[in-house]
């Protein structure tokens, strides 16, 4: 977990804005982490390593036994507010009201979608490293589908995207039926409706799609993974001489 391993300097007091819950206006470039370090160094301090705030909290800790129940009554305030979070928050002038302000991406009268993709990749990466509190007043409403398909295609080389897409969908389609016949439970048949079949299909296709490409060749693992749960369910019927559920 990035949160646990990353360390950063505390925000210099001068960067704090007066509003209690507002975030410092940091620019993404250069990296705030580096920038903070630089600022700290400039101020003549060695970078101080600070653990993320939630780790500093002492929380009531019931013994989470390996397979046991634990519960206890406690009266402790949720302490998040006690410690001003030194976690830098995501800021970008083009990020307005929970989405990318497309007018700020215009280049010669048209939106530079490549730049939008870059900006969003950066934002997601940032939030992965520094997960941020949700804010009811400023909901994130950005939807990747507003970026037209051709921008993705152009960006990610049409032939490759098509190959990946087509291969996954095809393998997925056959896998769905193959896996189904393997398990002997007849999931596809049992779900006598199109929605479930589509779902199953999409799902299996997706398992393949979001894998790394090299795994794709390792069909055995995929089959194992897809049928693992089925085996766990069928164990009950294995010890029966007749085998298989009988109704």
């Amino acid at each position: 977990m990035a949160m646990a391993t990353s360390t950063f300097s505390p925000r210099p007091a001068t960067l704090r804005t007066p509003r209690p819950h507002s975030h410092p206006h940091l620019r993404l470039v250069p990296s705030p982490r580096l920038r903070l370090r630089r600022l700290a160094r400039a101020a003549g301090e060695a970078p101080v390593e600070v653990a993320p705030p939630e780790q500093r909290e002492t929380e009531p800790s019931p013994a989470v036994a390996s397979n046991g129940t634990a519960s206890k009554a406690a009266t402790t305030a949720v302490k998040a507010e006690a410690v001003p979070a030194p976690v830098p928050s995501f800021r970008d002038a083009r990020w307005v009201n929970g989405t990318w302000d497309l007018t700020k991406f215009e280049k010669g009268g048209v939106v530079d979608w490549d730049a939008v993709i870059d900006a969003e990749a950066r934002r997601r990466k940032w939030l992965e490293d520094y997960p941020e509190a949700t804010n009811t007043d400023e909901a994130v409403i950005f939807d990747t589908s507003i970026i037209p398909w051709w921008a993705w295609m152009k960006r990610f080389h049409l032939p490759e995207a098509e190959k990946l897409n087509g291969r996954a969908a095809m393998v997925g389609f056959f896998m769905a039926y193959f896996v189904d016949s393997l398990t002997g439970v007849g999931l596809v048949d049992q779900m006598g409706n199109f929605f479930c079949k589509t779902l199953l299909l999409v799902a299996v296709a997706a398992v393949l799609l979001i894998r790394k490409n090299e795994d794709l060749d390792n069909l055995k693992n995929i089959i194992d993974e897809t049928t693992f749960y089925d085996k766990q369910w069928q164990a009950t019927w294995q010890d029966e001489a007749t085998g298989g559920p009988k109704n």
Partner: protein
Amino acid sequence: MTSLSSAVALPSSCRARPAGSSRRARMVVTRAAASSPKLPNGRRLRVAVVGGGPAGGAAAEALAKGGVDTVLIERKMDNCKPCGGAIPLCMVSEFDLPLDLVDRKVRKMKMISPSNVAVDIGRTLAPHEYIGMVRREVLDAYLRSRAQTAGAEVVNGLFLRYEAPKEPNGSYVVHYNHYDSSSNGKVGGEKRSFEVDAIVGADGANSRVAKDMGAGDYEYAIAFQERVKIPDDKMAYYEERAEMYVGDDVSPDFYGWVFPKCDHVAVGTGTVTHKADIKKFQAATRLRAKDKIEGGKIIRVEAHPIPEHPRPKRVSGRVTLVGDAAGYVTKCSGEGIYFAAKSGQMCAEAIVAGSANGTRMVEESDLRKYLAEFDRLYWPTYKVLDILQKVFYRSNAAREAFVEMCADDYVQKMTFDSYLYKRVVPGNPLDDIKLAVNTIGSLVRATALRREMEKVTL
């Protein structure tokens, strides 16, 4: 059996409510097991139900109603099972639950992605549709009181072990620690035992019945939950709303939640793969909800295992498992209350049918009928949720795509229908295809962004 005194301590809220007489009577299918012998001189079939959660309560009620001599053993009458307490709408009608059992009616379920994209799923709900939030101590006590009204004997005691019979149609001996009302739920108590013809293990994830019958183990997730009392103005936000957070920060393989309860919220998360890090995930869940729960008082901290799949063996002779003891919690959503109650009821109905309303001995094959029926009815649901979990909880990119997908009205309608009613109504094939295309689109975009993210250095 008659020597057993029932020391039942129900919370006043439940004692006040007589078990509904308005409930429509369940039709019990009576089908004599041809092979099993008739019980001697009018003796009724005796069944012990171990555990008084939703599974045990539902089983005991259906058994007693079907003419079976039933004893339910519960170690702690005011047990407050660590649980989110969300139940589907169909549970309210199928089990005729009185509406005052439902503390809150959630109509807005917020799904929040790793990059904080939030979608309200619930837009497609009809005015009468909602997800019910119950307090488990109230629900469990209510179901037990109904079992008692139906004629089951409810005993406060800790089940210790059972002895299997030596001869074919012999009795099982159940050993337990009896607590009288003064030692309710305390250690100590008096060792007692009694004889039964069959045992239903409804004693949850750490089932002793399962251990005694050699049912084998299952993988489990550990779920951690804090009950937080937040100021009224903050509570107002959660009036009809529940939140689900997804992301590697809150859980690598499950979700973090904020569920509204009667006068507080439950904030929690769970994981199978990284149990040692559960505190870190909990802190991350709290951080993501931050302002909304800030300043609240933690009134209770709890942790409990959640089974991931059924045990290798769910029946042995005339002993069988239901609910969490068997392992009936769905992947992806972590839902188990409904399936616990349903499996308890189905198991009881199989016993009632197999014993011709308590007049004949039952056999393993009768109990297996319940398993076959349960698997037939619900296996597709479990499988679909397993697939969904494998696909959409495997990485942040997939989670982003998942949340994006959930913004779609059609997806919302289909997921809510299948959650609320536990049945899947056929959709419109054209919409299904559109959905498939959109999903693939979302996944492709999320994966593409993920590749870009790998190149980014902050």
